[in-house]
């Protein structure tokens, strides 16, 4: 089944007559896409915890500024008497964003679910390049080590914001975290980029070349479409970030001045290099990082589409418009980066261009929301935990999508730029959106991953509490933003304009603590179910996709027989058959040609 030399090699390992792979080659340096997917999943879950604790540090300071930090205070700031320093605060939000974006969201979507699902959903026995696939996971480790070590170097981890704007990030005198921590940050991000690039090439090749017979492009599940478009985005956008990161490394270590203007004096020491332009970094950075925003949401949209159709027991509404809107988002995603820079000092005429393009990118997102609602309409909804998370994705994405229109409007953005309105917007998209979709996807595909079911009762408790607490945490941020409450301020309350907002922040912090605590329920359910969950068959949800025809968990090579595909993945409730699901592999009844 595999068309590549590596595929054959990987396949041979597990065959009779050869010796069984040892523990190391089976679970550590594995070539199996499922194991690699799970390695990504476990790594990202651990970083999710770290990123969440960093967020609590931020929330603590905003609710009770300069007070003793409980539990961690003595440990981390013993020298300062248990209170957080402003340097530490800047490091907290920098690393919170870095960890969540580069170590959680991107690798959990593309790395964990992309790896696990692509071969299973297209009917392949593995990825096109299994060795490359293994390397894409192991290249995350230098990144993990760089970022992890940066917390302990002199000056602490990077503190120039996750956007790493120069000159703050380039000139070591500018901030304590702009020392070794920033250099490690740049190397860490570069390694993540290498890992993503390896994954993206592999995904594109696999999806184009290794689909099962009958699996045309327009019979692919939307998850796979989203993964495919995401891979294309990564392949085109990443080189720019890598180049920009390398330029920044050269500015820091090699004495160049790509991003440093002439005659810059930082902290009373004149910079030797000059002739560069700080805005150049912003253009290069956002040329990658805006498409990256869609890298962080498209796979979630795809997975939500699959879950919604399955538990509405109804075909997805408007399959092709969904595919076109994913592609439209990706295409437009390359021409909207300037909307991060409306007040940056770039030519104001450019603001108008980017604003129009940005308004237009709201359109495919709107089309997707309408089609998800259309999918629920007239269905027979089953309220599984996965379904609740998928529906909450739709509900929350509406909030996050609509709030984007405010900042797309340039004059409004002048006021709300760099305020908590922005923070509200991207947390609604990335946490309330993507993270909720990831939870849904974990509940949905867990049986396929481990051959056991997660507990539905505790799943629903987990959903309910997360849903309530996340809105308590993030919704008031819109109001903060309307008052003008700026991001990244360790203590905004000494400004008259913002002094009345302390109580609101305390409420939000309490909700945030509740939200993080709720994840303990998830952790127990997740890890407990791996060992003690009730065993399940191949298709516990009565779904249609190819992955549900493989054993749970699928063995090496995935399928016992070569799957042949007769129709798209969303033919739920088809009048052609008596059952409400209609597997993609089920031959059509006599005398009927199925599409």
């Amino acid at each position, binding site marked *: 089944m595999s068309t590549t030399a590596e595929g054959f090699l990987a396949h041979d390992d597990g065959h009779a007559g050869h010796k069984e792979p040892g523990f190391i080659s089976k679970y550590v340096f594995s070539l199996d896409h499922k194991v690699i997917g799970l390695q990504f999943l476990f790594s990202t879950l651990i970083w999710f915890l770290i990123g969440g604790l960093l967020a609590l540090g931020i929330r603590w300071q905003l609710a009770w500024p300069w007070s003793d930090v409980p539990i961690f205070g003595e440990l981390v700031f013993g020298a300062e008497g248990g209170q957080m320093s402003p340097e530490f605060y800047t490091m907290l939000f920098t690393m919170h964003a870095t960890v969540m974006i580069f170590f959680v969201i991107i690798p959990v979507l593309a790395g964990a679910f992309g790896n696990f699902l692509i071969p299973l959903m297209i009917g392949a026995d593995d990825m096109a390049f299994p060795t490359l696939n293994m390397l894409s996971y192991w290249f995350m480790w230098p990144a993990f080590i760089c970022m992890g070590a940066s917390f302990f170097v002199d000056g602490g981890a990077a503190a120039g914001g996750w956007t790493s*704007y120069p000159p703050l990030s380039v000139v070591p005198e500018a901030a304590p975290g702009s020392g070794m921590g920033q250099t490690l940050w740049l190397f860490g991000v570069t390694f993540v980029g290498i890992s993503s690039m390896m994954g993206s090439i592999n995904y594109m090749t696999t999806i184009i070349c290794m689909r099962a017979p009958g699996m045309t492009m327009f019979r692919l599940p939307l998850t796979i479409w989203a993964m495919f478009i995401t891979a294309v985005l990564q392949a085109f956008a990443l080189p720019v970030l890598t180049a920009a990161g390398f330029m920044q490394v050269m500015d820091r270590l090699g004495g160049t001045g790509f991003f440093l203007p002439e005659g*810059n004096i930082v902290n009373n020491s004149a910079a030797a290099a000059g002739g560069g332009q700080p805005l150049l970094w912003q253009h290069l950075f956002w040329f990658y990082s805006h498409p990256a925003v869609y890298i962080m949401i498209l796979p979630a949209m795809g997975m939500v589409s699959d879950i919604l159709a399955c538990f509405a027991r109804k075909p997805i509404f408007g399959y092709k418009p969904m595919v076109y809107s994913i592609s439209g988002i990706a295409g437009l995603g390359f021409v909207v980066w300037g909307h991060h820079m409306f007040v940056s000092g770039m030519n104001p005429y450019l*603001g108008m261009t980017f604003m129009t393009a940005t308004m237009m990118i709201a359109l495919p997102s709107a089309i997707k929301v309408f089609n998800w609602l259309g999918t629920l309409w007239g269905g027979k*909804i089953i309220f599984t935990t996965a379904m609740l998370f998928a529906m909450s994705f739709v509900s929350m994405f509406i909030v996050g999508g609509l709030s984007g*229109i405010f900042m797309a409007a340039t004059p409004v953005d002048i006021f709300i730029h760099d305020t908590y309105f922005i923070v509200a917007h991207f947390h609604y998209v990335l946490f309330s959106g993507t993270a909720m979709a990831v939870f849904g996807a974990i509940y949905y595909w867990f049986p396929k991953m481990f051959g056991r079911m997660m507990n539905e009762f505790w799943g629903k408790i987990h959903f309910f509490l997360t849903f309530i607490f996340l809105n308590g945490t993030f919704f008031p941020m819109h109001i903060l933003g309307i008052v*003008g409450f700026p991001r990244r301020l360790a203590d905004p309350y000494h400004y008259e304009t913002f002094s009345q907002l302390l109580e609101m922040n305390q409420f939000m912090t309490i909700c945030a603590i509740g939200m993080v605590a709720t994840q303990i329920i998830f952790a127990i359910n997740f890890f407990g179910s791996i060992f003690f969950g009730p065993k399940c068959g191949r298709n516990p949800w009565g779904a249609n996709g190819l992955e549900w025809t493989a054993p749970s968990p699928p063995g090496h090579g995935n399928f016992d027989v070569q799957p042949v595909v007769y129709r798209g993945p969303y033919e739920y409730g088809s009048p052609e058959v008596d059952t409400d699901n209609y597997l993609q592999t089920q031959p059509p009844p006599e005398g009927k040609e199925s599409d």
Partner: protein
Amino acid sequence: MGKFWAFVFLLIPVLGVAVFVAAADDANYWFPIDVSEYGHNVDRLFMVILWLTGAVFVATEIALVWFILRYDRKANTAPVKFTHGSHTLEVVWTVLPAATLLFIAIYQMNVWADTKVRRPEEPGVVVEVTARQFEWRLRYPGDDGKFDTPDDIYTVNDLHVPVDEEIMVRLKSQDVLHSFFLPNLRVKQDAVPGMEIPVWFKAKSQGAFDLVCAELCGWGHYKMKGRLTVQSRADFDRWLAELEAEGQRTQSEAVENSETEE
């Protein structure tokens, strides 16, 4: 359970609208008071978008809640509507939002042009603002109206402007990025080292207002606080004259003063 989950999802539109209505009703939780010539355009545009998106928000969220209630497997006895979509509907919900979004885009271009493109031809006061870690250094041109002459007047963090006059700020940065944010005038502009960026505004009423740094500039970012005083032309001239008389003509003296104040 369908009813329960419908109720949970209903919380979003109900509480969402309630929070916005309550906040809009309380000056503490809404836009800071606007004292600028152009600011009301920004606020009005915000409200236009808020009404438009608010309507879409309520409609879509209620539709979601209604579907959860109506199409609960336990409540819905009818067979599923086996449909793959509707061409007409797709066209409708593509064209309508597209038209609305284009409307918003075109509607606001003039406001943007007023604040960022069309510079005032004869500003009443020109002031140079140089941001540095973690203070705002200010320079007025003095009697001759020209910068880089001996009568330039320097001060730190204490921006004074006359009321009802066009103010032209020449925004610079000495070290890293900063952002010149006057919440009450709806003004925000990043200061970029190596660039001089024009910023203009016109204050309509007198008073003292916050000047906030809105772009991360290092550990002391949170305390990079300035003060904007809007006063009558006479008071402004008197203030400038006093500054001049105190002999704070050189930047270094102004800095020394600001350091002893701390």
